[in-house]
């Protein structure tokens, strides 16, 4: 009887793993089939107004890039504080936990917050608001990554730096960050992959635009928001464009993820 139960459980959990894989391939295969037939040179060279994706791809990329420019320095320095300057005090562990909580905060709530402080006072949606929502979303991930990666740097390196008389910030920037470079880069890559696929915080902060623009004071084109809008359109051609966008987005994100994993493996 024990052996029978054992067999049953083992088979069930193998089935569960198979089911997980089935979902992954189901999603990837439908994406590929639906997406690839609309991917051609035309959508990369035309804007949404002409049924292309060019402005959306560039817009999404710019938004994520600005989020990186805002979020990464703050997050990294905060991570450095947690690991190097706090000496394990209460405040640091409080911030560490808080940042983990913030990592799981609903992204749409961050969107409403940015709407209240940046969109409502200005009176219309703008690219800056979208980029800042993404930056807020990214911040705790960067903090966590930096914190973890710096923690892996051996103590002897720090002592060696201090022993030759370097001030602490020089030790941090010239020795510790360099030692943890690969890990931090990987973490940043994964954080970038996470925010570039975000939709909810952009819906009512940067909105979407049909035209090509790099003016962040106006509504800004965004691939994910456009996918959301187009996918529910009655026009079949627009739905196909949404699938093409979804296909490009997903494979871009997956490739970044695999690349991040590869870098880590390469190092070990």
């Amino acid at each position, binding site marked *: 009887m024990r052996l029978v139960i*054992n067999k049953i*459980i*083992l088979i*069930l*959990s*193998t089935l*569960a*793993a198979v*089911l*997980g*894989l089935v*979902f*992954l391939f189901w*999603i990837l295969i*439908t*994406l590929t089939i639906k997406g690839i037939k609309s991917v051609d040179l035309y959508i990369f060279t035309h804007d949404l107004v002409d049924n292309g994706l060019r402005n959306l791809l560039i817009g999404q990329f710019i938004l994520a890039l600005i989020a990186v420019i805002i979020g990464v320095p*703050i*997050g990294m*320095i*905060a991570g450095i*504080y*947690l690991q190097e*300057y706090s000496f394990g005090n209460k405040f640091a*562990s409080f*911030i560490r*936990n808080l940042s*983990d*909580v913030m990592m*799981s*905060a*609903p*992204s*749409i*709530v*961050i969107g*409403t*917050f940015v*709407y*209240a*402080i940046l969109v409502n006072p200005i009176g219309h*949606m703008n690219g800056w608001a979208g980029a800042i929502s993404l930056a*807020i979303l990214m*911040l705790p991930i960067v903090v966590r990554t930096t914190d973890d990666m710096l*923690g892996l740097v051996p103590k002897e390196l720090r002592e060696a730096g201090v022993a030759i008389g370097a001030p*602490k*910030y020089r030790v941090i920037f010239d020795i510790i960050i360099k030692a943890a470079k690969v890990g931090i880069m990987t973490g940043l890559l994964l954080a970038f992959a*996470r925010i570039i*696929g*975000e*939709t909810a915080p952009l*819906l*009512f902060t940067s909105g979407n635009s049909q035209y090509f623009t790099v003016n962040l004071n106006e509504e800004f084109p965004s691939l*994910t928001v456009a996918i*959301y809008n187009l*996918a529910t359109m009655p026009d079949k051609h627009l739905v196909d464009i949404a699938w093409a966008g*979804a296909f490009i*987005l*997903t494979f871009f*994100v*997956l490739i970044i993820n695999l690349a991040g994993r590869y870098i880590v493996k390469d190092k070990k």
Partner: protein
Amino acid sequence: METLFKRLSEISASTILLILSAIFVVLYIQAKPAIEKYGIHFLVDPRWGVTVQKDNTANVANKNPDIQKSSAGVSNDAMESDDVKINDDNDLGSDDLAGSESLDSDNDIAVEDDDALAAAGVEKPQNSNTEVIYGGLIPIVGTVLSTILAMFFAVPIAMGIAIFLSEIAPPFVAKPVGIAIELLAAIPSIIYGMWGLFYFGPFIAEIFGGSSVNLLVAGLVLGVMIIPFMASLTRDSMNTTPNVLKESAYAMGATKFEVIKDVVFPYAKQGIIGSMILALGRALGETMAVAFVIGGVFNFPHKLTDPTVSIPVVLANNFAESSGLSLSALFYLALILFVISFIVISFAKFYFLRDKK
């Protein structure tokens, strides 16, 4: 330079605290008109954007009990046991917000609320004799039900995957499967939504009947979305079980299942429960995967295949077009969502996944 950098690093670390408290404060300020107008009664009022008759004259006294009775009747009929529990949670969250206001029972709330309405009616006689009522019960129930469905679906499968990856599969299988599961977690949620709308929804509708956008589909898509997240966290905590413990159990003749049940699970219990709660928090706040498939109508779900709405979806669909009181009501919903997920996640964080540093 050194002190400067140290100061800078402290300031950066404090931004996290600052942003979180700013989110809370800003949402509260924006939600204030709605909070003042509807109070905690908002949580149990199933009407959203419904225009009701409002009399400014002597009828006020007669009319109010009617309103109260009807709304109480609707909510009582509709509420199920699950919801009662959740409403308690919400009360708890909102008590924090309401600060000094301590409200004991639903009756108190209703009476106070109606008084407030009456007062508002008297103060603003220039309005026509109708007004629009916003209540958050339906999105709150939709959020909770879809999350519960997702958990029912996801927990057994995620456990199975974790067991498979950490105990059953040989390394050359476990590794690629593990990576595949983690890739599943990296797929943007909007893709899950699209897939749910065009493929999974119709598939489910064929089996269970009903339309292809409904509560059940939303719950299942959410479940599929949180499975990889939960599975990889659970696997990680199961992998921390020392081999010595497992080997001694095997040496006594235990089967694999007994080892998992009696050695691995008790050892990794905290991590597993913590990962479930984190996944729950993620499901609560998920927008895009649900927005495509839940239907987005303010409709009380009487059966699983009814379309309904959840808090994030209400926000996503209505935020850009709203202003005034309806916008404030949306901020109220956002605040409720923020507080619920904050409590859920901190609970997981502080009780189960405490940093071992």
